[in-house]
């Protein structure tokens, strides 16, 4: 088993704490089937360095795992890791997690960490640039989404304050789990960005869903994008009466 990156420096009052969903992503991305898929898709020396983007890094545990274990997961260490998070506190926390993980002397041939930027999903990412996208979305069905108009005030410490307020923490944590109707409102936004940001030939995305997200409908939706796209469930956990509580979809472009 590959080591899990340390997140002991992270304040979980306002940053999502690694949980079952995070660990399912680690297990799936390092599973024999997925490493075989990624090895063959990114077999060096062609193509050039793959770019891995994690949307919503939170503590940074998933992206740090992928970066630190790039040689095992991709069969190459020239992988670049970039993250986004809407929560500025999460950006700073995951930056530290990534830096620590890739410079750990115990890590053999890690990948390269670029930055974590404070952004809404993948909005500032250049078209066609992402080889591998990872997303552990806010997937819990909720009546409302957090108020983004108020976000700017909650996203930094108030002048003079030494710590975040309770309201602030609640808002920031809600961004990590609240998914609106069917828990899919945010995931649908990201799905809509995929065809633009994923590399036109090599692009692949790993997206986590829960049972309430109606994964089969999500898969049907992706299949409606046309013959150049494929989707498959490649990881699951919490099996109960034939229903997986959590599952991971691999969505990828297939050649003509």
């Amino acid at each position, binding site marked *: 088993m590959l080591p899990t990156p340390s997140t002991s420096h992270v304040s979980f009052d306002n940053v999502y704490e690694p949980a079952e969903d995070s660990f399912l992503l680690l297990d799936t991305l390092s599973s024999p089937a997925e490493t075989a898929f990624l*090895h063959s898709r990114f*077999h*060096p*020396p062609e193509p*050039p*360095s793959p*770019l891995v983007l994690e949307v919503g890094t939170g503590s940074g545990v998933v992206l740090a795992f992928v970066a630190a274990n790039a*040689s*095992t997961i991709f*069969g*190459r*260490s*020239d992988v*670049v890791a*970039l993250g*986004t998070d*809407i929560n*500025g506190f999460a*950006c*700073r926390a995951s*930056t530290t997690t990534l830096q620590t993980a890739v410079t750990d002397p115990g890590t*053999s*041939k890690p990948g*390269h960490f*670029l*930055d*974590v*930027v*404070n*952004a*809404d999903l993948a*909005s*500032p*990412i*250049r*078209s066609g*640039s992402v080889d591998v996208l990872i997303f552990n979305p806010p997937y819990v069905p909720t009546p409302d989404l957090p108020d*983004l*108009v108020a*976000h*700017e005030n909650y*996203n930094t410490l108030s002048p003079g304050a030494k710590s975040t307020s309770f309201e602030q923490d609640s808002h920031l944590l809600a961004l990590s789990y609240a998914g609106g109707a069917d828990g899919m409102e945010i995931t649908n936004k990201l799905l809509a960005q995929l065809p*633009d940001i994923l590399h036109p030939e090599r692009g692949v995305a790993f997206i986590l869903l829960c049972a309430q997200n109606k994964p089969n409908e999500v898969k049907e939706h992706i299949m409606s994008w046309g013959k150049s796209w494929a989707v498959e469930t490649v990881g699951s956990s919490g099996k109960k009466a034939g229903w997986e509580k959590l599952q991971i979809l691999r969505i990828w472009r297939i050649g003509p």
Partner: protein
Amino acid sequence: MKLLTLNFLTCARKACKSTTLAFPLRPKDAELEIVEADLEPLFIRNILPRVEWEALRTLCQDLGLPQLPPAAPEPAALFAPNPSDPSIPSDKLVRPGKEGEGEGEGEGEGEEGAPTQTLKDLHHVLLETTIREGKLVCGNCGHAYAVKEGIANFLLPSHLV
């Protein structure tokens, strides 16, 4: 924030993303910090085909860094010919692969000679030169994104989303 990161970013506004003016974002009032990083020659070689050279030249110009050549260096300009035994063709060299990682050696370990100054300069520009504080301005809409403590903020005020 590393200059290499800017190679993958554009304006966050949907209307700007499709325009050529939104890339690269132009640094303004930037305070740079040099953060030393281990030189990994093969990484520089493999990332270079992904670097938009014109954009990188523009960034260097904006930041007052030494000017880059008009065209990206060829892979051959990154490594000095191996002086130990140039008669051995590169595919005859034994590559130090790792046990149990059959494909892991394919990055071309052991093929190249010493990294040239060109490669070292690229390493310095792409990975060691970071923007600590400042702004990143979209050439299309003029919106300025703040960089604070090395982290860029691409969140838009609600009227611009």
